[in-house]
């Protein structure tokens, strides 16, 4: 009996390792802090992580294609100041664009999304046609986009946004905050894209073996542009929404978000050697980071110790999860 059961348990543990880590963390925090397992707190975790969650979805898809996108944090800042500068209150004297008429709310939203998607497309184009490594192309745009954001604003915040824009980040859709609804929507979109479209198949194919994909007739270049455009779009969407939530455009918003997003995707079992990864894993990864931040906050852990704890848990979670991949090889 025992010999039969062990492999089954092993299989389940391996397959759902990351969800077990998530559950274990949730359970221990419930024991440690009475404030943890309340609907209010859990929703707050979701609100706090929705932005980075969207980034993780985008960069997760990129990593599955055996690429990397370092520019997403800076895309957040660029979209933040672009969108904010178009929707400042008219009675605020230090506006960026003084002669701008009162624009409808969708203008800054679309301007932000287009900006981010364009940066992503240029990333993809560079990687596809100049054959420079994704690390370098997106590192370039990480610096360029941040520079543009700083230049547009002179490093000053872009405050006093109109209330009808702020509602996007602060308002509710039924019982759920809009920003969380958008995140859930993007989770579904990404899942459908990866599992039920030709684009999704191509992502895994390119990530698994780019030459095989090319030989089999996949239009690799075009798909690379789509992949990075998707990542740019996700970052831009996050940028617009968290700008609305913070009620201010900030040129340093999204600093280091790319690292959090890459960490989340990696914790969630997305393999940097390409071709492996699931949307469920990425969501689990972002929730692990979110619960970790929240738990450290609730327990009042000293800020210095927090960094150590975070690092240890991230590495531990990946080690625990990697055992399944190690066995396959």
């Amino acid at each position, binding site marked *: 009996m025992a010999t039969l059961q062990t492999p089954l348990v092993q299989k389940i543990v391996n397959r759902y390792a990351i969800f077990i880590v998530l559950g274990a963390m949730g359970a221990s925090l419930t024991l440690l802090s009475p*404030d943890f397992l309340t609907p209010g707190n859990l929703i707050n975790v979701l609100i*706090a992580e929705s932005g980075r969650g969207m980034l993780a979805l985008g960069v997760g898809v990129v990593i599955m294609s055996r690429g990397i996108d370092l520019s997403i944090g800076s895309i957040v800042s660029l979209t933040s100041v672009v969108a904010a500068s178009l929707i400042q209150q008219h009675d605020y004297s230090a506006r960026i664009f003084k002669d701008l008429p009162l624009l409808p709310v969708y203008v800054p939203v679309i301007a932000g999304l287009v900006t981010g998607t364009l940066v992503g497309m240029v990333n993809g184009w560079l990687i596809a046609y100049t054959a420079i490594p994704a690390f370098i192309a997106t590192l370039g745009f990480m610096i360029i986009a941040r520079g543009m954001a700083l230049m547009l604003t002179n490093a000053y915040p872009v405050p*006093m946004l109109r209330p009808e824009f702020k509602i996007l980040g602060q308002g509710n859709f039924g019982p759920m905050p809009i920003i969380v609804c958008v995140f859930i929507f993007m989770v579904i979109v990404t899942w459908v894209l990866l599992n039920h479209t030709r684009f999704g198949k191509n992502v895994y194919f390119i990530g698994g073996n780019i030459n095989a994909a090319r030989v089999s007739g996949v239009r690799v270049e075009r798909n690379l542009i789509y992949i990075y455009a998707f990542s740019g779009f996700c970052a831009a969407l996050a940028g617009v929404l968290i700008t609305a939530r913070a009620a201010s455009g900030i040129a340093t918003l999204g600093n280091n978000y790319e690292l959090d997003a890459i960490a989340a995707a990696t914790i969630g079992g997305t393999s940097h050697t390409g071709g492996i990864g699931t949307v469920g894993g990425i969501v689990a990864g972002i929730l692990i980071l979110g619960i970790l931040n929240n738990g450290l906050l609730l327990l*009042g852990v000293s*800020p210095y110790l927090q960094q150590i704890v975070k690092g240890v848990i991230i590495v531990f979670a990946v080690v625990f999860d990697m055992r399944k991949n190690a066995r396959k090889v």
Partner: protein
Amino acid sequence: MGKWSRRALVLVAVCLIAAPVFAQKIGVTLYDRDQFISSLEQAILDAGKAFPGVTIDSQDAKQDVNQQLTQVDVFVTKKYNAIIVNLINTDTVETILERAKGTPTVFVNRRPRDAVIDGVKTAYVGSQEFDAGRMQGEFLAKFFQGKKEIRYVLFMGQLGLENTNERTRGVKETLTKAGFTLTKVYEDTAEWDRFKAMNQMQQLLGTNRPFDVVICNNDEMALGAIEAMKSAGRDLKKVPVVGIDATPPAKEAVKAGDMAMTVFQNAKAQGRVALEIALKAAKGQKIDKFGWVPFEPVTIDNVAKY
């Protein structure tokens, strides 16, 4: 001695004293022209107009250490009487003094190591970070008069920086000395970042832990905390939020009654004092090692002035 000859003597004496003053040339090198430094620069130029015969040559090093060194070299070659330096990097101070070749040098706004300041040929003009925290503390001591315990939430800037440490120490020490018992409800870094402070604040509010005050090392974090408290429907009149910097949006928030107070760093006074010390040093007069320009508290009562 006749009336006229005495007058002539006085005139000669005045000329003798004033002669070096008329000839004074001052070189200024700035790290970059951001909003704060530009207004500091303007103050130096304006203050210069009050001294007839003083010429000021003001250069912008555009955050390039090499360019700053070259500018100092040029000032020395042109035999300027004193130099005002707004350091790009505080580690280059020794090199700069070497290149200055004994020309009196006044540092402004970016503070070099105390060891290089001798009060003869070198001085520093700026504001003391500790005081910004102290002013928050004094404001809060008045606000909470009659209370014994203050349960506080504190958002700090980047860990390990001088201004984070000093501002934090300033507010805590002042409140403790005023006789309050400080009870920590939450204390963490939000890295000067509005959105990070907002996220942390929202999660903290979700726990319903009571607190009396939100202290922030800068205005951006204070604005983030305010945003979170507003959307949770908290009364900002009862729980004051205090910041530092007096940025334009923070001043708006003070006007609206959302932010209880912020602290203003006086760029104009820093520029004026730097020039005054530079002129004194150029004449070989005794100067102070430090020209401290006080921070100024900004509340709803005086916000219109700023």
